[in-house]
């Protein structure tokens, strides 16, 4: 992980503690301190991870409010295989915990914190929804794997032949796994390449955050999601 932190923030510019699948701390981004919150080891997000993430966000908001300093940016480092599948987690109401995380993200945004997501491993369905997708801007590292379900599993559930799905996946980004597909649909703002200076990329990304949710518009511009923006606009204004 340290190699990743070094590349993202610069050697010696980060103080991030790893606690199982959860990571939290601070780092320098450009000339500012940023709050770092994330998961690693393809974490299966459960109630307790959610509480750690939400707690870290609330702590950052609280701290900045108490010290009257400008709200620090929050960087989410995302690596999740999705939500934890278990009866216990469902009983506790894992969806409610995720909703709580989302509310904390929104609170931070309203308080003036910029939210940036960097996908450094996997970003899968519910785990990605919980906080990665709640950011103002989402960036993906070259090896990022983003998906809801792999095509073989999808073939099984939808009863559409796998080979047919493979062919259709070439034509359309809407169902097949891949960060590129999410980029085309506007949910990933930037795809960073292997040789990019990720530290600079992050600094630049931070200057481009916006509070408005512009993903549908972006998906339309990039040609990956041509209906979401016009239909939403139609319903909003008709």
């Amino acid at each position, binding site marked *: 992980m340290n190699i990743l932190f070094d590349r993202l923030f610069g050697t010696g510019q980060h103080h991030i503690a790893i606690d199982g699948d959860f990571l939290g701390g601070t780092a320098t981004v450009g000339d500012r301190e940023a709050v770092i919150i994330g998961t690693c080891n393809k974490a299966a997000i459960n*109630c307790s991870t959610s*509480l750690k993430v*939400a*707690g870290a966000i*609330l702590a950052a908001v*609280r701290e900045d*409010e108490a010290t009257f300093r400008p709200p620090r940016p929050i960087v989410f480092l995302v690596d999740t295989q999705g*939500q934890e*599948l*278990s*009866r*216990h*987690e*469902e*009983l*506790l*109401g*894992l*969806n409610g915990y*995720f*909703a*709580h995380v*989302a*509310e*904390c993200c*929104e*609170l931070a945004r*309203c*308080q003036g914190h910029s939210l940036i997501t960097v996908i450094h491993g996997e970003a899968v*369905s*519910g785990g990605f*929804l919980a906080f990665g*997708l*709640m950011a103002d801007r989402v960036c993906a590292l070259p090896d990022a794997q983003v*998906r*809801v*379900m792999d095509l073989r599993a999808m073939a099984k559930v*939808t009863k*559409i032949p796998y080979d047919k799905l493979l062919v*259709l996946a070439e*034509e*359309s980004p*809407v*169902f*097949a796994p891949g960060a590129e*597909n999410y980029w085309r*649909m506007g*949910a990933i703002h930037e795809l960073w390449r292997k040789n990019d200076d990720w530290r600079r990329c992050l600094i630049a990304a931070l200057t481009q955050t916006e509070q408005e949710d512009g*993903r*549908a518009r972006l998906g339309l511009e990039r040609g990956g999601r041509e*209906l*979401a*923006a016009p*239909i*939403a*606009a139609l*319903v*909003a*204004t*008709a």
Partner: protein
Amino acid sequence: MNSKTVNYFEASARTRITCLVDTDSFAEICPPHFRHTSPHLARLNAPVAFDDGVIVGRATVAGHSVLIASQEGKFNGGAVGEVHGAKLRGLMERALDERPVAVLLLVDSGGVRLHEANAGLIAISELMRAVLRTQAAGIPVFALIGGSCGAFGGMGIVSRLCAEVVISEQGRLGLSGPEVIETVKGVEEFDSRDRALVWRITGGKLRRAQGEATHLVDEDVHSFRSKTAQLLGAYAEEKLKPAGLAGLTEIQRQLAERTESYAEARDGRIIFQVSGFTDLEAVALMPIDAFNRQLGEAL
């Protein structure tokens, strides 16, 4: 149609709206003859629906203006695709302009539509932000849950963002469906055919006892309507206030306490027990008003 005899679980998305709102008050936005169907379903050679499985519009309930969306659980499990999700998000944006007393989400969905999974996932993320923004503007969103698909996946998260969650005992609220958990983790982890267990993990009564749902109502549409009308009256009097740092800190504390108290729990019986129910076998068949009384809820 008489909403007292119409069963919410059984009713179609359209019937639910008709029975829930004031007579003739519903005006649909993007009605079926606009034919905004899913091109992605069509590409995969799957049947499409004119409304893509969700009906949106404006209406009044007991005289209060609302925007309303109703998911059709029988069409692809109420799952969210690009068009479906865009209609829901557009409705939230419309609320910012129109400022109804509330937005009603009649949720009946397993979450993301696999045929357009990426679009669905992103749409739900957009919807989550839109719900929060609408509520931040003082307009509450109510989730009404009582359909055959319940509120799962992303729609389970969206439901819990809502200021009010009104659920019937047939309603279910959760993230991963029991079938998915069983498939991945095995039948020992979660026997999805044991429906009594499924309802003790995600069902309406459990969620109400736990506080995940704010109100438990009977299974007829009329009960949903009267509870909605009552809540609308309250919100018309007193506007929704955002939780803020203090509110979310308190929720954080409560959720942490739950994680700790039920660290080993794998069956909702323990939650009913803690809620003061003595005959745990009788809980499932307990009439709704008796159940609510036990929880100390004034009617």
